[in-house]
């Protein structure tokens, strides 16, 4: 499977010849793919395939050894995490990194940080425009909580929520930054079936709002159900790319997951 990285005009994200090696160990080897605007694009692969490494490179948490990531035609490799976020790429974390000592509402309000004014002087003096801004932020944050279904828990502390709600809240916080691309790192990890369904539903709703979703996930059933396109990594290499139907029929993928004898399991 060779990667044909044709520059489609509507590619919101383009990963080009990406190589990441830690010492002698190659975590990613010449990975190429495009993410189309307004789609749900999944990256799957067995443990250690390089999925999270890929995510960390795209969101600026890791510098690649070689290769470039383009966001809306501009190279973003080498930018800091904060700068990548400022361009409109938001992310969640496999380990769920919420601001635990704050309320659910405050967690979402922080999402607007890069869009608002927050000078120490203006805040300390309690200037009128800061107060107006706070009131508006609250309203917008409540809208997001309505959208993700956590409005009733707005005033609860984030660390009092069960894991499913925490993952949902983290997605809500990412949405609050008004991204054009959200990267979700295993949004269903550790969730039960109902919670996974809620998450899947939410991810579809996000795409329907016009936000492109890139997601890494282990839950194959969820991936097959919601993804528009799938990239499969194995040992740092892209071994397949296509629609869910194409991936399910791909022998290389089945081999990577189950060995030769496992053919037909996804059918």
């Amino acid at each position: 499977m060779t990667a044909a990285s044709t520059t489609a005009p509507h590619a919101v994200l383009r990963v080009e010849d990406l190589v990441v090696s830690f010492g002698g160990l190659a975590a990613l080897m010449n990975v190429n793919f495009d993410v189309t605007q307004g789609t749900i694009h999944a990256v799957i692969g067995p443990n250690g395939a390089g999925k999270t490494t890929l995510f960390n490179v795209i969101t600026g948490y890791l510098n690649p050894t070689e290769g470039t990531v383009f966001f809306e035609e501009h190279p973003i490799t080498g930018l800091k995490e904060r700068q990548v976020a400022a361009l409109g790429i938001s992310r969640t974390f496999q380990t769920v990194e919420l601001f635990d000592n704050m309320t659910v509402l405050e967690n979402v309000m922080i999402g607007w940080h890069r869009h608002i004014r927050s000078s120490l002087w203006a805040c300390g003096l309690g200037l009128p425009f800061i107060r107006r801004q706070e009131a508006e932020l609250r309203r917008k944050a409540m809208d997001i909580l309505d959208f993700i279904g956590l409005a009733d828990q707005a005033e609860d502390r984030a660390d009092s929520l069960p894991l499913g709600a925490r993952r949902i809240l983290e997605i809500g916080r990412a949405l609050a930054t008004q991204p054009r691309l959200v990267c979700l790192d295993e949004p269903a990890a550790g969730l039960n079936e109902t919670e996974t369904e809620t998450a899947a539903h939410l991810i579809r709703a996000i795409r329907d709002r016009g936000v492109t979703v890139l997601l890494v996930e282990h839950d194959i059933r969820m991936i097959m159900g919601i993804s528009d396109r799938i990239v499969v990594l194995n040992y740092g290499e892209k071994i397949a790319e296509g629609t869910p139907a194409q991936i399910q029929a791909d022998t290389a993928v089945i081999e990577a997951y189950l060995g030769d004898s496992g053919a037909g399991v996804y059918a």
Partner: protein
Amino acid sequence: MLRFSKIPIVVLAGFLLIFPLVCTGISALHGYISLMVFAGIYCLITIGLSLLMGYAGQISLGHAAFFGIGAYVSGIATVRFGVNPWFCMAGGMLVAAMVAALIGAPSFRLKGHYLAMATLAFGLIVNIVFREESAWTGGPDGLSRIPGLRLSGFMFNSTIRFYYLVWVIVLAAFLFAINVLQSPAGRALRALHTSETAAKSMGIDIARYKIMIFVFSAVLASLAGSLYAHFMRFINPSTFNLLFSIKLLIMITLGGMQSLWGAIVGTVLVTFLSMEWLQFFQEYESIVFGGILLLALIFLPEGLTGLPNMLAGRGKK
């Protein structure tokens, strides 16, 4: 939501207003007014430290030095050059801000507790300068004949007048800090304390916020130093040593680091304990003081201001 209720603030202001009147009436309490002046001066420093350490999670072991910078800029400029004390106060704050930015910028670019190390070294160096540059600072003997403060004819020449001056400034700083904490800037500070990883993904400029709050706390400490110099009208280097930096940490820890109220409560309590109530134990004072601290840390991990929550939590169980 982090919200500070208005009632306790009004109660505090009322208490501060009548405190000197009560103390003047009762002869045994006369000395308490000047103790409260010291407590107020220290509160200015600990309010800044509470934002820096309690909310933003950055440790400084050198705030005695910023306190000293304020005191010595005021002392030297008024005694040696006859500059107006209010200008000296502003000048000290400016110097402290620049020095803090210089120390903070490199320390905050590194991961880990480099600020603690940098400020520890900085505090020691500044103290040596105070002691050795005797042509300017008066050396170990200190600097005397520092003028008092006056505001267009009104002299702050009594303890009570100084008391009101200091506490008006403390209350202003306290309200400023409360506003900061209830605003986007405060959320950013609390966010980077909880998870720098997540704060970055929100587009928060972590280094900028850390420097900003460090500079702010240094400016408050310098202001406190200037007030101290004009109140005591004499300063010497031993006031601004490492031990004092540690004492500031004790104040906010005892009061409750994750709370701005803790800074006030802890500071007033430690000031009264160390300058008055524990004097009874004479040479055993340090031991008793140490014992109180130890017990507080074991039984009140969230400080005195965490006590109501702790009791409420226990009641529920």
